């Protein structure tokens, strides 16, 4: 459905028939700064799409445009078949902003009642939805308490409840787990995982994107620089497995030369008095590497196999760390 193209080239996306969200050539400038430059992607019904990038990459600006909070300078947005920014498009989106956007003096139920009414919910239907949504985010027993009395994690869950209340077709979550305790973070991830609706999830935590998202778009400096499933991205841009050998006081030159002779070892180099080997499949070469070390009388104090991850993908594509 789409192809990821690395380097500084823009992603070329082949958009499927009537996706839930379709963004095409989005461009937004704030003064002299081009915050978003030609971003194109789509999200299918029921798909969880992760927008992964460091702070300031353009994630929130992209979200603002597709939620109708900012008007793109160029490009088109379609939500559930409606032009972005229209009332119909807004009604189809559930927006969960990065910061808490609830009234601390009101209870969760009062907050949800107000935000539900903005989406034309009323009466018994509204009350039922509020109960179900609070249950979903694990706050059913605290619904009548004021938001101001909640912990940080509970506030985040209530924040998400306000975006889910009207049963949107597309849920937009802008870094929902920043600064959240592990328990609430897991609860949020678990909730998102079982929604079954189209989700746009922005984060700079690669493990969240890897765990939750069906597809991931990597954004940096306003450009969508790669897109695809996590496995595909890692396969295409993450590089090889690394086998790290910790060896105290051994003759590393001799061992390195012996490792280079092994099958499927592509590169060997010294790192801080230890050896690092590049290979297509770390576990497969492990026994041979250990045997070579034993044969050369090297006492291995540690062996670690590390597969490439999205951090490596980002490093490979941009030359910098994801959290830079």
């Amino acid at each position, binding site marked *: 459905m789409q192809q990821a193209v690395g380097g500084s080239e823009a992603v070329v996306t082949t958009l499927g028939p009537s996706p839930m969200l379709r963004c095409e050539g989005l461009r937004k400038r704030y003064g002299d700064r081009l915050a978003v430059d030609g971003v194109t992607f789509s999200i299918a019904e029921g798909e969880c799409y992760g927008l992964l990038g460091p702070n300031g990459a353009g994630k929130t600006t992209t979200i603002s445009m597709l939620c109708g*909070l*900012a008007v793109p300078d160029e490009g088109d947005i379609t939500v559930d078949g409606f032009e972005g920014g229209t*009332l119909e498009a*807004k009604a189809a989106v559930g927006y969960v902003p990065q*910061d*808490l956007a609830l009234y601390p003096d*009101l209870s969760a139920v009062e907050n949800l009642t107000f*935000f539900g009414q*903005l*989406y034309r919910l009323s009466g018994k239907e509204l009350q039922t939805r509020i109960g179900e949504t609070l249950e979903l985010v694990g706050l059913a027993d605290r619904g009548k308490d004021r938001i101001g009395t909640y912990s940080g994690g509970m506030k985040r869950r209530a924040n998400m409840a306000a975006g889910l209340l009207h049963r949107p077709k597309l849920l937009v979550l802008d870094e929902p787990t920043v600064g959240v305790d592990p328990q609430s973070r897991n609860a949020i991830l678990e909730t998102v995982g079982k929604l079954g609706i189209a989700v746009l999830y922005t984060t700079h935590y690669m493990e969240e994107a890897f765990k939750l998202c069906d597809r991931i778009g990597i954004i940096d400096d306003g450009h969508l620089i790669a897109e695809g499933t996590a496995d595909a991205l890692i396969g295409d841009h993450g590089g090889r497995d690394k086998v790290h050998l910790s060896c105290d006081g051994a003759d590393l030159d001799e061992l390195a030369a012996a490792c280079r002779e092994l099958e499927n070892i592509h590169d060997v180099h010294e790192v801080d008095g230890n050896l690092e080997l590049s290979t297509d499949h770390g576990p497969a070469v492990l026994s041979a590497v250990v045997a070579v070390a034993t044969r050369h009388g090297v006492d291995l104090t540690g062996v670690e196999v590390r597969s490439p991850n999205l951090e490596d993908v980002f490093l490979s594509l941009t030359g910098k760390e994801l959290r830079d």
Partner: protein
Amino acid sequence: MIRVIALNELRRRLRDRSVLIGCLAAPLLMAAVLGISFAGAASTVAVRVGVSGASPALMAAAEQASQLPHGVTVVAMPSQAAVKAAVAGGTLDGGVAVLPGQMQLSSLLVPIVDPGASHTPGFDVVTRGTSQLGQEYAESMAAGISSVLYADKVPHHVTAHPATVAITTQSVGHGGKVNLNFFAPNIAVVFLFIGSGLGMRSLLMERSAGTLARITAAPLRPTQIVLGKLLAIFVTGLVTIFVIWAVTTFAFGANWGDPLGVLLMCVGATVAMCGIGVFLTSLAKTEQQAFGITMLVGLFLALLGGNLLPSGSLPDVFQVLALGTPNGWALVGFGRLDQLGEPASSVIGPFFVLLAIALVTGGLALTRVRKMVEP
């Protein structure tokens, strides 16, 4: 949707008690202070002002024109010399001797436009330094006689048959209900302005708190959001002025005048003060700026419009400028009802002026505030 936004605004302001303090507690406190200060008669001061050289017909017309407080008694005095002697001796607190021989049509304007002028051809305003009220009523009486003569309501020749009068009153001073009637609407209008300015501050607070973004992301038109906020401000403003009206009337016996007229003026004053308050707030970029602008302009308008000091006590230019302020026009309307006892129909003019002010300032505010909620 406008109603939903407004109700949420009111619920939040009730919950954080700002509406209780701003719309109920503060007005109640102010009404109580005004009531206790002005409603009693314990500290009334007797003031006697003598007038000589005017016929009874001229005196009657002048008395009405000078709008002296209720309870004034007019007593004849024998001559200009008698007035001077009585003022010097303390029997009178002030006096006016009309001097027909020195009077010209052009000089008649002097006591009207400059009541405290040191030289008033055709009049001898006799005062005693220790009686401020006596001086003010003597000057008012001189202005009243001048205005009647100038308007030619009374033939000039009657002044050739001098009559002498003295004015006495037992109900002026800081204990009169007249003052309560005057100050109660004045203070209410100040509260309206401050309340509306601070009310719109909530939009700035919502913007910084992030809730405005969530509301804007909902399927609403920007105008609905702004009108919802305005409706909440209007309701709280109306409650404020009704509270002051009710408390000063029922608890302290103030008389604001014809209830229908008062109702009309309450609505007119509220929409106008909301309009200008919201417009000024829309000029601010932060809550702190909004607070500063509201307080600064509120105080300035209160002074200029005559809310804190009667506009008659301000320089002439300020009396004209007062009519450029919404509170000045509100006080014109309230003054016709409570000071002059005129019917509701007399405030239709000020009401429409206030509506016009509301439309202009509210329209400007709507344009500016819309930009805050538009993408």
